[in-house]
C-alpha cells in the first residue's frame, strides 16, 4: 500500500500533462505529413521516399519568402504552392514513365529524387540551420512553463488542413475522381476520368501538404537539409502502423506514436525516445501486420 502510494507520488503529473500537449502538437504535424504519404501510396502504389525532402524544401521556401516579405502566412501559402508545383513536375518527369511497372521501381526513383533534392538544398542553403520566426509570440502559463500559443495554433491549423482535405475528397469533383481511381483504376479510366492527371494531382497535393507542415514546424526547430529523413521515417512508421492507404488510421497512429515518444522523453533522451516508435512498429508487425487502426480484414 505504502509502496503503491510512493509510486503514485513519484509520477511527475505536471510533466505528463506538458508532454501530452507536446505529443498532440507533433502528432498533428506528423499526421499532416503522413496523410500525404498514405494518399500517394493508396492511389498510386508509390512509396514516396522523397516525401521528407518535400517537407524540407517547403520549410526552405518558407524561409526565403519570409525573409523577402516578412509575412509568415504568405510564406506558408507560397511554399505550399511552389512545392505542390514541383511535386507535379517531378511526378510527370519521373513517375509517369514508371506507371504500370513493378511498384518497387518507384521506390528506387523516389529515393533518387530524395538524394538529389537533399544535396540541392545543401548546395543552395549551406549546412547551417536556418530559423523561421514564430508568427505568434506569447504564451500561457502551464505549471512552471510559459507554453507558447503558437504550438496550439500549429495543431489547430494542421487539423483544419486535414479537415479541408477530407471535405475535398468527399465532395470536390477532383476528390471524387481521386476516390474513384483508388477503387478501380481501369474502370475510372473507362468512365472518362483523366487518370494520369489524377495521379499528378494526388502527388501535388501530397507534396503541398508536406511543404505546409514543413513551414508550420519550421519555427520549432532549425531548418536544415537533413531534417526530412527523420520525418519520412516517422511517417513511414505511422503509415504502416495506421494501415497503408488509410487516412483515418494514419491520423490516429500519428497522434498515438507522438504521444508515446513524448512520454518516453520524460525519462530518456529524445534521441533514444525514437526507439519507442520502432518498438510500436515491431509489435504492430507481430500482432496485426495490416495496421493497428484498421478494421479486421475479413
Amino acid at each position: 500500500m505504502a509502496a503503491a502510494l510512493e509510486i503514485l507520488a513519484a509520477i511527475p503529473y505536471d510533466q505528463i500533462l506538458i508532454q501530452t500537449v507536446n505529443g498532440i502538437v507533433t502528432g498533428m504535424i506528423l499526421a499532416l505529413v503522413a496523410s500525404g504519404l498514405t494518399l500517394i501510396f493508396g492511389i498510386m502504389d508509390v512509396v514516396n521516399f522523397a516525401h521528407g525532402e518535400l517537407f524540407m524544401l517547403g520549410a526552405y521556401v518558407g524561409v526565403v519568402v519570409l525573409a523577402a516579405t516578412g509575412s509568415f502566412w504568405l510564406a506558408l501559402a507560397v511554399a505550399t504552392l511552389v512545392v505542390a508545383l514541383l511535386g507535379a513536375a517531378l511526378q510527370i518527369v519521373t513517375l509517369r514513365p514508371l506507371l504500370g511497372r513493378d511498384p518497387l521501381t518507384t521506390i528506387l526513383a523516389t529515393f533518387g529524387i530524395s538524394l538529389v533534392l537533399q544535396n540541392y538544398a545543401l548546395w543552395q542553403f549551406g549546412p547551417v540551420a536556418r530559423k523561421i520566426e514564430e508568427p505568434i509570440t506569447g504564451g500561457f502559463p502551464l505549471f512552471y512553463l510559459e507554453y507558447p500559443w503558437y504550438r496550439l495554433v500549429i495543431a489547430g491549423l494542421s487539423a483544419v488542413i486535414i479537415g479541408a482535405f477530407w471535405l475535398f475528397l468527399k465532395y470536390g469533383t477532383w476528390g471524387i475522381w481521386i476516390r474513384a481511381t483508388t477503387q478501380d483504376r481501369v474502370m475510372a479510366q473507362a468512365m472518362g476520368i483523366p487518370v494520369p492527371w489524377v495521379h499528378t494531382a494526388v502527388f501535388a497535393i501530397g507534396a503541398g501538404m508536406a511543404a505546409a507542415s514543413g513551414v508550420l514546424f519550421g519555427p520549432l526547430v532549425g531548418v536544415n537539409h537533413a531534417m526530412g529523413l527523420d520525418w519520412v521515417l516517422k511517417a513511414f512508421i505511422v503509415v504502416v502502423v495506421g494501415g497503408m492507404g488509410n487516412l483515418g488510421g494514419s491520423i490516429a497512429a500519428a497522434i498515438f506514436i507522438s504521444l508515446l515518444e513524448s512520454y518516453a522523453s520524460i525519462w530518456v533522451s529524445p534521441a533514444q525516445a525514437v526507439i519507442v516508435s520502432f518498438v510500436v512498429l515491431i509489435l504492430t508487425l507481430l500482432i496485426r501486420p495490416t495496421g493497428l487502426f484498421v478494421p479486421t480484414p475479413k
Partner: protein
Amino acid sequence: MKKRSRKAYWIGFGIVVALLAVAPLVLPEFWRRFLTEILIWGLLAMSSDLLIGYTGMISFGHSAFFGLGMYGAAAALLTVSPPNLWLAVGCGLVGAAGVALFVAYFSTRLRDIYFAITTLIFSQIFYVVIFTWTDVTGGENGLTFRRPALSIPWIYSTPFTNETLHWFVLAVVTASYLILRRITQSPFGMVLQSIRENEGRTRAIGYPVERYKVVAVMLSGVFAGLAGVLYAIQNRFAAPDFVYFLVSGETVIFNVMGGIGTLVGPIVGAGFFLLLREAFSRFFTEYYLIPVGIIFIAMVIFMPRGLLGFGRSWLNR
C-alpha cells in the same frame, strides 16, 4: 554449344580475376586502394543481390548487417591482444548473422514495399543504438583499432602490406562470389527464384516460403557482414555512419546500376558509382550526389536492367 559457352564463361572469369590480382602491382597507390574499396562495396552489393535479384525482396537495411560486421570485427580486434584476423572475421560474421536473424524474423512476414520499409526502419534502430550507446560503441566518434596480421593459424603470420591486403580482399570476394553463385543455382536458389516469380504458387506447391525467405535474408546478411569485416580491416575504424541508411541506399543503387540478378552486376555497379563519384566530386565537390542521383533516376526509367542486364542469362549459366 552449351558446353562451349560455359567454357567461355570460366575463361572470362579467370581473366577478370587474374587482371584484378595483377592490378596492385601496376596501379598507383590511389587507384589500388580505389579498386580494393570497389571489391568490398561490390561484395556488399552482391550480398543484397541475393535478395533483390533472386528473391524479389528489396532490402533497404543492408547497412545494419554491414555495420554489425564492422563492429563485431572491431570488438574482436580491441579486446583480444594481439589482434587476430580470423577471430575478427568470426565475430563480425556472428554479429551480422545475429542481426540478420532478428531482422529476418520480423521483416519476412511482409512483402514488397512493406519489406523495404521494415528493413529500413530496422537499420535505423541499430543506428540509433550504436550512435547513443557511447560507452561501448564510441558513439559518434566510432572505434579505431590496429590492423591484424595476415595469418594462417599456427603456421604462418605476416603483417598486411597494401598488396597482400588487396589479394586477401580479392580472395574473399571471389570465394563469396563462387559460393553465392552456387547457392543461386542450387535447388534452394531455384526455390528463391520461384518465390520471386510467383510467391503464391510456390506456397501452393508446398514450399515453406517464410522459412526460405528467413534463410535468404540470413545468408545475405552474413555476406554483407563479411564486407563489413573487410572494410574494418582495410580502414582500421568502425563508425556509426556506416550503419546509417544512406549506405543501404547506395547498396541498392549499386545493384540497379550494375544489373540485378547477375551477382557480378552489383560489383560493376559499385565500380561505376564510385567512378562517377570520383569524377563528379572534381566539379561538384561534396554535392556529387546531384548529378549521380539524376543519372540513377534516368537509369531506373530507361535502363531498368542495368549495365550488365543484357548478359543476365549468360552470367547465370
